[in-house]
């Protein structure tokens, strides 16, 4: 998952980014002002937007309206130091999904970020199932019939991204865009290597669910037919 933080207070942005990377395994990009932030939302790489309300350049509210006008459904979490009810109402009406007032609890911010991403992908529960595999987004663990599968952080992130979209074809490019931030050198063969490892680990526990490679098109998480 990839998150965009638009916050002019660099120290705060760094702390949030660090926590999201460390605790959730997300790829995180930061923008220091509203103009850059608004431009970055246009790539549609992000699974969550974290916006400060008072920003130089373009304020958070106008970024929200701009994103929603494009019919972009990316979840938006607003950070604000002002908590007048009228302002909150205005924000939510403009299309924001949630808000937190500064100073917030970092743990709460992470929990809300994860919940918003889950719900944005149509899964309100923290545990996702495909075949016999269950993935817990809170613990960041993957089990097959109750047995823990040991995955590297990248493998976990890959599986997490794919499990939200079972049976859909996901391109290597999309995976790159959503799993790595801008500081990462984009090489699609890196993805291929991680997918291959993931496949092996799933096979090792005897799971029939696998990740098919569709040459030139991408990857697909394929679960065995349930009727069997």
């Amino acid at each position, binding site marked *: 998952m990839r998150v965009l933080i638009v916050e002019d207070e*660099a120290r705060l942005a760094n702390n949030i980014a660090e926590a999201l990377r460390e*605790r959730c395994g997300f790829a995180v990009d930061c923008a220091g002002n509203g103009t850059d932030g608004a431009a970055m939302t246009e790539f549609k790489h992000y699974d969550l937007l974290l916006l400060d309300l008072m920003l130089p350049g373009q304020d958070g509210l106008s970024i929200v309206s701009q994103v929603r006008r494009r019919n972009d459904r990316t979840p938006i979490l607003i950070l604000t130091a002002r908590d007048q009810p009228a302002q909150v109402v205005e924000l939510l009406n403009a299309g924001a999904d949630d808000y937190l007032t500064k100073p*917030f609890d970092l743990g709460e911010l992470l929990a809300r970020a994860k919940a918003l991403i889950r719900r944005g992908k149509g899964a309100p529960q923290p545990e996702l199932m495909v075949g016999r595999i269950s993935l817990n987004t809170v613990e960041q663990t993957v089990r097959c019939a109750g047995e823990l599968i040991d995955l590297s952080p990248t493998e976990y992130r890959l599986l997490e991204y794919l499990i939200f979209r079972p049976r859909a074809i996901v391109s290597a490019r999309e995976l790159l865009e959503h799993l790595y931030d801008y500081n990462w050198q984009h090489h699609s063969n890196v993805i291929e290597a991680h997918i291959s490892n993931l496949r092996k680990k799933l096979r090792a526990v005897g799971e029939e669910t696998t990740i098919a490679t569709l040459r030139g098109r991408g990857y697909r998480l394929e679960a065995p037919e349930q009727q069997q």
Partner: protein
Amino acid sequence: MSGAAIRTRSLSRQLIGGVLLAELFCAALFSAVAVGHEMHGRRRAFDVMLRGRADSLMGAVQDAEDPEDNVTVDPTELVLPAQDVYEVLNPSGRLLGHSPASSVELLTALNSSHAPGYFNFTVNRERYRAVRFDGVRVIDREEHGGYHRTVTVLYASPTRYMWHGAVEAVWFYIAASALLLAVTGIALVWFLRRRLSPLQELAAIASRVSTRSWEFVPPTVVLRTSELAPIALSIEVLLKGLQQSFERQRQLTGDAAHELKTSIAVLKSSLQLLSMAPRTAEQYEAGLEGLLLDCERTEELVSRMLMLARLEETPAEQSESCDLRSVVRAVAERLQPLAELKQVVLEIKGNEPRFVAMSSGDADVLCSNLIVNALQNSISYGRVSVVVQAHDGVTELQVVDQGEGIPHAALPHVFERFYRADHSRSRASGGAGLGLSICKAIVERANGTIQIKSVVGSGTEVMVTLPALPTPVRRATDRPPAPRA
């Protein structure tokens, strides 16, 4: 006021009451004069009537055709009211005739000694007005040129009827006045209500104003009323000013809260990030270092906010003064390392001591804020020049840099609190957007002005103008209070 509610008095009611009272007074006066005039007229008419009846009685005096050649009264041809009383006497006092229906008592009362003329008397509670006169009656004018007979006529009539008429007239006047009063009262109420409606509208609109809703638009009917237009306009101006200052205050509180909350959010998230997972000693050390920096920034923000509050709350002391030139030199010396770091030449001009009315602490803050700003905005290998000079009774402090300049649109806002022309960069460089606000507060406290000119791409010039003080001969504390502009 004492705790009791103030009794309100209605302007329109007072006006109506006043006008009606004046009308009542006029009506009373008019009625009194009219009644007096009426009475006088009626009395005169009565007297004329009395005399007329008495004269016609004279006509009834005839020769008695008796041996003494007397005269007698023959009233058979006369038509006189039955209640009237009369007597006719000859000069010797003998009664020649009297009204036939009158009682003896009445006749006696009439004939009591009176001088000729009109008089009043009362018999059995009946008031009479009477006339007595001596007349000469010529009898048998055709025969021998006539005989002249002198007679005294006494004639009285009850005044009851006359007074009855007068009372009727008085009642008529009173009723007419009361009717007039009632009609004008009603008309007045209607008229005043109608004419005073702009006042009521103004009051209603003014009462709707509150700290939440500042809208005050006087209706055109109020603005067209010459007495109310100035009030409405001054209320409008006052409210606009109040609203602006209220909004400014609210904005300021909100901005201050925003800055403080953001600072605390940084501290809190740094601490939480550090404690989220077990860390190595090096990670803890780096984290603590960062936290210390965050703390220092918060501290600086708070101290700047408090300084601004102090500058704006407490008035300047009369005796404060310092030499601006020596303060500039001291500050420049202190900032030389920063200038070297930025590779900027810091140049100070002005050798004469220039005394201004501010404490050396405030002057230090003013100069260091302006010079640090100039250094930070300056390009590498640029030049920042600070000039202290005096002319025409003012001391000028001029700080010029060769920096990027301030965008034209941002210039009017640079003295606003928490304003940052380039938000992220100033925040990154540690500014809270309070430096120039503090400078402005210090300068204004010393009755000076501060102006900023800037051209994007070539640089910024800040000009501070302060009233010049004479150079003290003795120590500054021994000086008499400085003259102030």
